[in-house]
């Protein structure tokens, strides 16, 4: 079964995938910042997936962030921002 991806509406600023945990406060801050910046993205709350899907998604995340921490924001399948790095997120999306 394909992991549950939720698309969050906003301006198209590339192919963005946010791997998050529904209980994580820093993931929540990242979601809020992306909303404030009106950025559209795909969101996966990994803790809400079943075990098999989690394993699959973790493999995906580790390609970009070997430590596997949350949140991990993958941009266009090549760049990645780990954690709630407000400065990096703003820099990347504010001027676009």
């Amino acid at each position, binding site marked *: 079964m394909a992991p549950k991806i939720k698309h969050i509406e906003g301006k198209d600023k590339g192919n963005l995938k946010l791997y998050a945990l529904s*209980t*994580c*406060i*820093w*993931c929540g801050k990242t979601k809020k910042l992306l909303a404030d910046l009106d950025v559209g993205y795909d969101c996966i709350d990994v803790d809400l997936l079943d075990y098999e899907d989690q394993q699959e998604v973790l493999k995906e995340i580790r390609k970009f962030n070997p430590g596997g921490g949350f949140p991990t924001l993958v941009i266009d399948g090549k760049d990645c921002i780990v954690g709630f790095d407000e400065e990096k997120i703003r820099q990347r999306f504010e001027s676009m």
Partner: protein
Amino acid sequence: MERQYSEEDIEKAYRKIKSDAESYGYNLNPEEDFTRSLVKGLVINTGRYGYQSCPCRLSTAKIEEDRDIICPCDYRDADLNDYGACYCGLYVDRDIKNGVKKLKPIPERRFLKQSSEESRKEPDKILSVPEKIDSFVRSLESKKIGIWRCKVCGYLCARENPPEICPICKVGSDRFERLL
């Protein structure tokens, strides 16, 4: 569908965690919305897994793999010492509590530990008492752990740095001496 928790459930857990923290010489983050949101995560995880796994880390749902991230996690003291807050920002030091320093997201240290644990396996053999002491001291050194004594009440603890506040008599870390 996951169980929903009432405000009252969260409030009860919040009060317990706060009073425990204060009586053991720790501070919860004074930003109440932030802290309540983390406590809600702990309540949800306790319902999901049967133990209060860290809300900011992915649980495996297997307690033997998650023991180190049961809140308060194994990394709290080191993160409080290095960054003034635990990984989630639930526990903070005095400077952040008093608004002298700002809380920032902190890097994950969890996976640093696993590689060093793997490398410190030694074969079992029968040791004499001095050898045992020597091996004990070396094992503390390799974990960078010291034995600290509160000069006011005599409380002893084994950790990297003395606690910010003595959990027994509440004096500050400057009243601790290092014994080993």
